[in-house]
Every structure is written in C-alpha cells, then in structure tokens.
C-alpha cells in the first residue's frame, strides 16, 4: 500500500475566538480538504470557562480531530498524544471505509475480535509509516503570554517526537494574530526545529483572537489545497511556497 500523507492543524489556545469567520466553520472547511483539526486548550488554573470549552470541543468535532484542556506543564506530552491518537483515528476511518466497501455495512463491528486485533496492528503500522504534516497554530493574544515558554518547549519536544517516527514528518509553526495577516509563519515547514528558536521574540500581542481566519490561512500552507476563489482573496495571501522537497530552511524569527 502506498504511504499516505496525514495532514493536521493543531490549534493551541486559551480562550474564545472573537474575530472573523467562525472557527467551527473554518475547521469544517479544513476537514473537507482532508486536514484534521486538533485543539489544545491551555489553562493556568481552574478551567476554560464554559464558552471556551464548548468552542474547543466544537472545533475539534467539526475538524474530525481531538481536543484536550491541560495545564502548561502537560502541554508537551499532550501534543504528542493528541497527534498520535488523531492519526490513528484518521487511518482507522480510512481502513473502516475500505472494509465497508469489501464486506458491507458495520464491517469493523462485524469482524471477530481476533481479526480486529490484526486490523489494529495494520493501522498502527500505517500510522508509523505515513507521511505526517502538522501546522501548529499558536494563539498569541495577550493572555497567552505567560504560557508561551511552555508552548515553545512543546514545539521543540514535538519536533523530537516527529524525528523519531519512521515515516517522513514535517511541521510548521504559526502564531495568530499576525502583523499584517491573520497569522504569521514563525517556523516554515521543517523536519527539525532548532532548539535556539524563540517563539516570544517579535510577537504581536493583541486582544484579538482570530482563530477562524487563522485556521483558513493555515489550510493554505498545505500545498495540496487550493482555496475557493473568494476565500483565497481574503485569506490566501500568506501562501508559503514549500521548502523544496522538504529540505531544511532557516527559521524566520
């Protein structure tokens, strides 16, 4: 079987969006384009508030992904776990669909557990060997400032996890809101994040949280996607030419 490419957007935020297109609609569009959207809510203490939690859940559901709400010190491990689980889920869905075509409805549930264990082994292996492209979308609105050190550590840690995979992996890191656009590309597509990279330098701190528009712009970073004309005019200007065949490039600070 040809190794597929799994595409994910991982939103790291601490509150509700308050500008532009609904993030749930944006996540729906991403999913439509074959991109899974995962969301991690980072909280200092207590919880996110009902509204924030609801939005996070709805973005993940619409984006076919997973969500979690964690403290900054849990962030690094959560990023790895969430990404892996979402990958497994995506592959599982593809495999189930194929099985359904061969075996008819309720194919997976209809299999004896022994056979399903074999399918699980296959899903696991496919997950390990697939290509993986992840865009990390970091909310840099004012309230996130004290959490950015943890985010930065999580980025570096995630880079190690990706490097440890058998399949080819790339990641890009963006912060939103950006200076001119809805997001700024902080680290273009790379296979390895430099430890010296500083996320906090030159950040635009503001009260605006344009989560939806940022997701739309992030979709454009996956070069396989062509945005619909209307959206491209509004959001597509940040398009990032792929670092030729995934070769390493210097980070933009």
């Amino acid at each position, binding site marked *: 079987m040809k190794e597929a490419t799994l595409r994910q957007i991982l939103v790291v935020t601490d509150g509700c969006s308050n500008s532009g297109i609904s993030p749930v609609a944006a996540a729906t569009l991403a999913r439509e384009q074959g991109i899974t959207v995962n969301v991690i809510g980072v909280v200092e203490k207590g919880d996110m508030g009902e509204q924030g939690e609801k939005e996070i859940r709805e973005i*993940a559901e619409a984006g076919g992904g997973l969500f979690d709400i964690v403290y900054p010190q*849990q962030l690094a491990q959560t990023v790895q776990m969430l990404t892996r*689980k979402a990958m497994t*889920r995506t592959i599982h869905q593809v495999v189930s669909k194929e099985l359904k075509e061969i075996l008819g409805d309720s194919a997976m549930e209809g299999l*004896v*557990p022994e056979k399903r*264990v074999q399918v699980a082994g296959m899903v696991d292996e496919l997950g390990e060997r697939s290509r993986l492209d992840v865009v990390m979308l970091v909310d840099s609105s004012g309230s996130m400032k004290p959490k950015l050190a943890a985010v930065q550590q999580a980025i570096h*840690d995630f880079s*190690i996890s990706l490097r*440890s995979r058998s399949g080819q992996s790339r990641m890009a890191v963006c912060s939103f809101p950006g200076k001119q656009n809805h997001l700024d590309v902080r680290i273009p597509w790379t296979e390895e994040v430099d430890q010296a990279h500083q996320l906090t330098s030159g950040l635009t701190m503001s009260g605006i949280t344009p989560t939806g528009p940022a997701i739309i712009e992030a979709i454009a970073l996956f070069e396989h996607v062509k945005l619909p004309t209307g959206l491209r005019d509004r959001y597509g200007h940040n398009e990032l030419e792929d670092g030729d065949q995934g070769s390493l490039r210097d980070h933009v600070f």
Partner: protein
Amino acid sequence: MSFNRAIPKLPPQFRGKWNQKTYHVLRELGRGANGAVYLVSQDGVRRAVKIGAEGMDILMEVHALKSVQQGRDARVTVAPLLCDVDDLYIDGRSCTFYAMEYLDGEQLDQFVQRTGTDWVPVLIIQLLARLVVLHQRGWVFGDLKPENVIVTRADSQVRLIDFGGVTKHGCAVRQFTEEYDRAAWHAGDRRAEPAYDLFSLAVMTVRLASSPEVWKSSRTEPRQTSLLCDIIRNNDSLYPFRVPLIKAFHGQYAGAEEMKSDMLAIVQGRTTAVQQKKASGSGSSGIWIGGLFVASMLLLAGTLYYAWMM
C-alpha cells in the same frame, strides 16, 4: 487527560458478545492513559479486565501483548497472559475489552518503600531480565515507570503491566511519561530501541533509591542528567552502581543483557566483600548484611531460574 471520550463504566456483571464468557466485577484496579483496569471473576478465576475510551487503542494493546507472547519459548512470561478479547454493550454502544491474567502484587515503588532500598538492585536486575526477552522479540516497553511494574505478592517476582507503550523496534515510542523519557531529559530521541528502555530504567533506579525530597529537587527545568549524577554521587546505595547507571544515561549499552551483567557483578562483588568483612570480625552492621544476604540469595535464585529458562 480527557481526549474527548470518557472511559465507559463497566456494569457489575457482563457477558462478552462473541466468546460468551461471563464476568463479575470485583473492583477497579487502576487507570492508565488508554483505559481502566478492573479486577473481575470469571468462572471463579480472578482476572484483570481492561476497557478503554477508544476501541482501537485497546486492540493495539492486544496486538502488542499477543506479539510479545508469540515465540518459541512461551514459558518466559514477559507480559500478563492474554485470556480473552471481546465486546460488550454499554449504553447501547459496543465497547472492546480484554481479559488477562491477574497479577496479585504491589506497585514497584510501594514495594521498595515497604521493604527498603536494599531491594532496588535485585528488582532492577530482574527487570533487566524481562527486558532482555522483550527486546529479543523485537519490542521496546516504552513507558517504563514504577506504576507499570508489579512485584508479585506470592513470590516477589517483577512483572511488567500496562502494555500501552509497547512499541516495535525502530518506531516512535507510542506512549511515555516525561519523568522517565529520554527526550524530556535531553538525552536523545524517542525512537524505540533497547537503550530507550535502559535510560528509563536508570532514572527509575535513582528515583526508587532516593528520598522523595531529594527526588523532587532534581525536577528543575530543564531536565538534565547531570542532576541525576549528583544524586548518585551523594547516595550510598546508588554510588556503587554509578558506572552502569551513567552508561545507561548516555546510551552506551547496546542491550539489556550487558547492563544486567554489569549490575550483577557489582551486587555479587559487594556482597562478597561484605561477607569477608563479617568473617574478619566486624559484625556491627549485622542487619544491613542480613538484608544483603537475603538479597543475594534471591538474586542467586533468580539467576538460576533464568539460566534454567533460557
């Protein structure tokens, strides 16, 4: 951590959809990253049943458990024996569970707390023997930590539980705990290889032989293995094992066998030295020597046991 779906709650009694085995739930044993484990009774036999939020995670664990148990020499038990894989309906939803051999015992750290740090090298050597077999079969344990190791009540044997992190050699470790994770300590990546497990094992050794206060003091950011070396230097029960521990931190062991024989040599050498000392008439540390003697006897028994098994 939530990951959206809650772990389904087992009813007090249930029957598997496919294999029709009936289980009575006795109590919850614990929770891991992928699900909850319950003590159950099936036809009067005690078993452990694991159920998770995501059926696929449970099936992957079963896959690892089964692969580990395959092989020519099934007598060497590295994993709890798998007894059943089946589905049950909870609130109209089909959930996958598996049943395995129930290991009645104590969590590794609690055992050490109760019996004393004299036991640590013995337990670590036993664990290394388990890892030798696991690695030979092409798997790496991944999430090695005291919570995932049990010392059986009946015969003080070390057993690995929770196979959620078990990863095929060469793949990215599926599940880990930062405290014991090589990458979190900035000492390498997360590629599954024997050295990854040995690193976790060495951190675990330091943790088990240190007082909670000392251990806590090592947890400054960023994590650095030099902090662990400081602890070893200042700890009388760890100091004799500094060479194998530091080699494991630096990934200098190709396999668990090598580390095991280094550890063994130190334990045996130390015991002999102490006994000679005793024979020459300085019997002041009698209790300590007694502990060591018990430990060395057990170790000898363990070695013979494994020699016979191999």
